[in-house]
C-alpha cells in the first residue's frame, strides 16, 4: 500500500550568529494508512522538530533546508502558509503536550470545535454543534451536551487533553501528529488518554505519528518506532523488534537504561556521557564518542540506515564491508 506520509532525507537548519546548526539531518521514514509510528529520543534529539516540520510549524529561524515531505504523494514541505493552514486540521491534526497552548481561553470548547468542523467539513451550525457534542462524548467527557459550552479553564488537565484530542480529530484528518500528548498528565490519566488515542486511531483508520520520550507509551501504542539521536534516525522498525532486540548500540543502551517495574536491579545500565550539542556533532556516526562498539570506520564515515533483520539501523556493525574486529584493541586500550 502506498504510504500516507513520506519523509525523504529531511534536513532542518537553524541559522545562528555562530553559523548554521543542523537540527535534522537526513531523516527519512514513512507512515502507512492506519499505522501508528512512534518517534522516541532524548530531549534535543529532533523528535519534536520532525513533527513540527511535518505540520509546517517550525519555529523561526528554523527552516527546511533539504528533502521532501509528501502527504498522499503530494509535496507539502514547500506550501505557502495559508495553503498549509488548510491542510493542517483537515488532513493533518496536531496534538501538543500542553493543552493550554492549543485551546483558545476566550472561546468555549464548543465554539472552537464548531468553528473547526464548519471550516473543514462545510457543515451548518446546528449540524456542526451536534458533531461537536458527539466528539466530546467520544473522547469520554461526561455530560458532553452541557460541557460543550464550558471554557477551557473549567476543565481539569486530563479533560482538557481530551478536548484537544477531539479538536484534532473533529475534522477527520488522515494523519495525527501527537507531540508528547501524555507527558503533562498523571500516570492514571496518561493511561486513559493513551487508550483513547489508540482506540480512535484503530476505529477511524487514522494514521498517527506519536512523538514521546516514554518508551512505555510507545510500546503500548505504536506499530513501528523510530529512535532518534542528534537529529538523525538511529534505528527504525517494528516496535516489538526495536524494544526486545534493539540493533543499534544507542537503542540498546536506551532500552537497557529504562528502570524495570517488575524487578529491582543492583546497577542500571547507563550510557555514559551526554548527547552532543547541535554545534558539536562528531564526524562519522554521531553516537561514536559514547558507543561501546565503536571502531575505526565509525569515526570517519556516517552510516546510512542498513537493513538488519526486521529493522533498519544506522550502524556500521551491520555492513558486511566493515572491518569491525581489527580495532578491538583501540576501544579497550
Amino acid at each position, binding site marked *: 500500500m502506498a504510504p500516507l506520509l513520506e519523509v525523504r532525507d529531511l534536513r532542518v537548519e537553524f541559522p545562528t550568529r555562530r553559523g548554521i546548526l543542523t537540527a535534522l539531518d537526513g531523516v527519512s521514514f514513512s507512515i502507512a494508512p492506519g499505522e501508528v509510528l512512534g518517534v522516541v529520543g*532524548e*530531549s534535543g534529539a529532533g523528535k519534536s522538530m520532525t513533527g513540527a516540520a511535518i505540520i509546517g510549524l517550525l519555529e523561526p529561524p528554523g527552516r527546511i533546508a533539504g528533502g521532501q515531505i509528501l502527504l498522499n504523494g503530494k509535496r507539502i514541505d514547500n506550501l505557502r502558509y495559508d495553503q498549509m493552514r488548510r491542510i493542517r486540521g483537515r488532513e493533518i491534526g496536531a496534538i501538543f503536550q500542553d493543552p493550554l497552548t492549543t485551546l483558545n481561553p476566550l472561546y468555549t470548547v464548543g465554539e472552537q470545535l464548531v468553528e473547526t468542523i464548519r471550516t473543514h467539513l462545510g457543515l451548518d451550525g446546528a449540524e456542526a454543534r451536534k458533531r461537536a457534542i458527539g466528539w466530546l462524548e*467520544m473522547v*469520554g467527557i*461526561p455530560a458532553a451536551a452541557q460541557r460543550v459550552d464550558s471554557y477551557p479553564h473549567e476543565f*481539569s*488537565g*486530563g*479533560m482538557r487533553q481530551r478536548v484537544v484530542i477531539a479538536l484534532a480529530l473533529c475534522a477527520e484528518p488522515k494523519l495525527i501528529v501527537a507531540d508528547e500528548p501524555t507527558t503533562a498528565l*498523571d*500516570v*492514571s*490519566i*496518561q*493511561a*486513559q488518554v*493513551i*487508550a*483513547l488515542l489508540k*482506540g*480512535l486511531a484503530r*476505529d477511524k483508520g487514522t494514521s498517527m505519528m506519536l512523538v514521546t*520520550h*516514554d*518508551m*512505555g*507509551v510507545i*510500546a*503500548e*501504542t505504536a506499530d513501528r518506532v523510530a529512535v532518534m539521536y542528534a537529529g538523525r534516525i538511529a534505528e527504525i522498525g517494528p*516496535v*516489538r523488534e526495536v*524494544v*526486545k532486540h534493539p540493533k543499534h548500540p544507542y537503542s540498546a*543502551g*536506551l*532500552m537497557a*537504561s*529504562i*528502570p*524495570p*517495574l*517488575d*524487578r*529491582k*536491579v543492583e*546497577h*542500571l*545500565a*547507563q*550510557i*555514559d556521557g*551526554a*548527547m552532543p550539542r547541535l554545534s558539536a556533532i562528531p564526524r562519522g556516526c554521531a553516537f561514536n564518542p559514547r558507543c561501546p562498539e565503536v571502531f575505526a570506520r565509525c569515526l570517519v564515515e556516517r552510516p546510512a540506515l542498513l537493513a538488519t533483520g526486521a529493522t533498519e539501523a544506522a550502524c556500521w556493525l551491520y555492513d558486511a564491508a566493515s572491518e569491525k574486529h581489527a580495532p578491538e584493541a583501540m576501544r579497550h586500550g
Partner: protein
Amino acid sequence: MAETPILEVEDLARYFDVSRPWLQRVLAGEGKRILRAVDGISFAIPRGTTLSLVGESGCGKSTVARLVVGLYPPSRGHVRFEGMELERARAIAEQRRRMQMIFQDPYASLNPRWRVKDIVAEPIRAFGMTPSAAAQQAKVAELLTQVGLSPLDGEKFPHEFSGGQRQRISIARALSSNPDFLVCDEPTSALDVSVQAQILNLMKDLQARLGLTYLFISHNLAVVRQVSDRIGVMYLGRLVELAPAETLFTTPRHPYTRALMEAIPDLEMTGRQRIPVGGEVPSPISPPSGCPFHPRCPLANDRCKAERPGLIPARATEQSLTACHAVEEGRDGGLPAAQRIGTTATAL
C-alpha cells in the same frame, strides 16, 4: 529496632490558605479556601535506608519533602530529626549540616550567576567546615570528582552544563556538608532516561559508600522500585499504603496502589489489555469525605464514604500498612492480580 530512626514524622499536616484576597472574598460572600496539601501522615526512616513517597501530582509528596527540612512550618504534628523536634534541630548548625536536599529542576536549582565552585562550596562556607581557602578548594575538587565531574568544571557557570551534569553539581553541593540525611525531591524527573540511570546509579553508590539515609520523592514507580527499602503511596495528602518495597510490588494492597501499577505502560508487550482507573484526582481544597479514594474505588461502600480509614497493618502478620476499609474487612479478597478497577470515562 532500638536505634532512634534518623527521621520520624508523626501526624504531620500542612494546610495552605488559598483564599482570594479579603475584599474579593467578602464581596463574593465566600468562605476561606484551605488546601490540605498534607493531612496527617506518619512514618519513620531508619538510618542508612531509603523511604520513597510516590503519588500523582498534587498528592502532597513534595510538601512533605519541604516540611521535613523545615522549609515550611507544619500546621499540625511533629517532625523529629534524630529524636529532636525539627525546629530545635534546625536552630543548631551542627544538626542542620546533617540534612540536605536535592531538587527536581536542574535548571532552577543552581544560581545562574555563581560559578560551580562557589555553588558547591556554599555549605562548606556556611558551616565553616574548612580552615583555609586552599582546603576548601581541595574539598570542592574532591566533591566534583566524587560525582563524576572534573575539578576544572568548578570554574564554569551552570549554563555550560547539561541537565544531568547540573544534577551532579546539585548532588555535590548537597554532599559538601557531609550530611547523613538527604531529601531528594524528584531528582531524576526532569532528566532523559539514559541520564536518569546515571544519576540513580550515582545516588545508590553514594548511599552505599557514605551510609546516607534518603527520603526519595517520585511519581515514577519503576524508579522508586530501584532505590527504595520502603515505599509510601500518597493520595490527596494522605498515606494510603506504607510497605517494604518488595512487598508493595508483589502484593499491593490498597486499591489505589493497584490502580497506579495497572496504569503504567510496560515494555513487556504481553498484549494485556490495561484497564485504566477512571476519573481524576479530586481537589485537595474540598476532598471527598471518608476515604479520599472512594469516588474512584470499585470497592467503595457506605462506610468508605463516611469514615476515614486509619493506616493499619493489612493482616496481623504483614509488614505493610494500609488505609482501606475493604482491605481491613477482607472485602478485597480473591481479586486477581490483573484486574478490575472500574472505568467510566474511557469506555468507547
